[in-house]
């Protein structure tokens, strides 16, 4: 599975994602149901860390965030 596929799955899948956009080092996602977010899965996919605040989930992936975000958008 690609990085983008792993991250998408760990965010609860395409159906759980309201919006996803890259900042310079992280993916900023708005999700429907934060309980579906699998932090361990995100870290296994290479995330340095995960910051959750309600339905906002930030996945710190490093400067390739823009590439990963566009790969995820292609999968959605």
């Amino acid at each position, binding site marked *: 599975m690609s990085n983008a596929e792993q991250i998408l799955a760990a965010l609860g899948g395409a159906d759980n994602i309201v919006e996803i956009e890259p900042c*310079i*080092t*992280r993916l*900023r996602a708005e999700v429907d149901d934060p309980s579906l977010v699998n932090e361990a899965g995100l870290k296994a996919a290479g995330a340095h*860390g995960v*910051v959750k605040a309600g339905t906002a989930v930030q996945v*710190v992936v*490093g400067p390739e965030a823009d590439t990963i975000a566009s790969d995820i958008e292609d999968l959605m």
Partner: protein
Amino acid sequence: MSLPVLAPVAGRGLPLARVPDPAFSAALVGPGAAIDPARDGLATAVSPVDGTVVKLYPHAYVVRTPAGAGVLVHLGIDTVQLAGDGFELLVSENATVVAGDPIVEWDPVLVEKGGRSSICPVVALDAVASELSSITEAGPIATGDVLFRWEHRPDG
């Protein structure tokens, strides 16, 4: 020889832990330092090292040295939400720069007027904390002063 990482903006040095953003304060992106920028109207943010501007957003950029040391400069917190408003790019992505070259013109006061922090984290990407030394975490710092030194170990 350690890599001097220069202050991209003028202001006061702060520990990275003081940045009001958990991804930076917990050093999830890497260790470094932060600068509380001077409020003197328009300011020019410069390159912290010699290298290539590998990532360039209006509010943030990464310059990577030929040896592969990547330094991230983030102008303010949550400034991605400004979508470039108030930031003027002075170079293009993939430009070759030397330390001190102008990268972005911006106004910390405008960022604060929008309700956001103007603090600028400067991060040594993929570094470990023990590789950094001489970190300026307090007191005034001028643009181009050494913010910290990085004992960068190229991969392989």
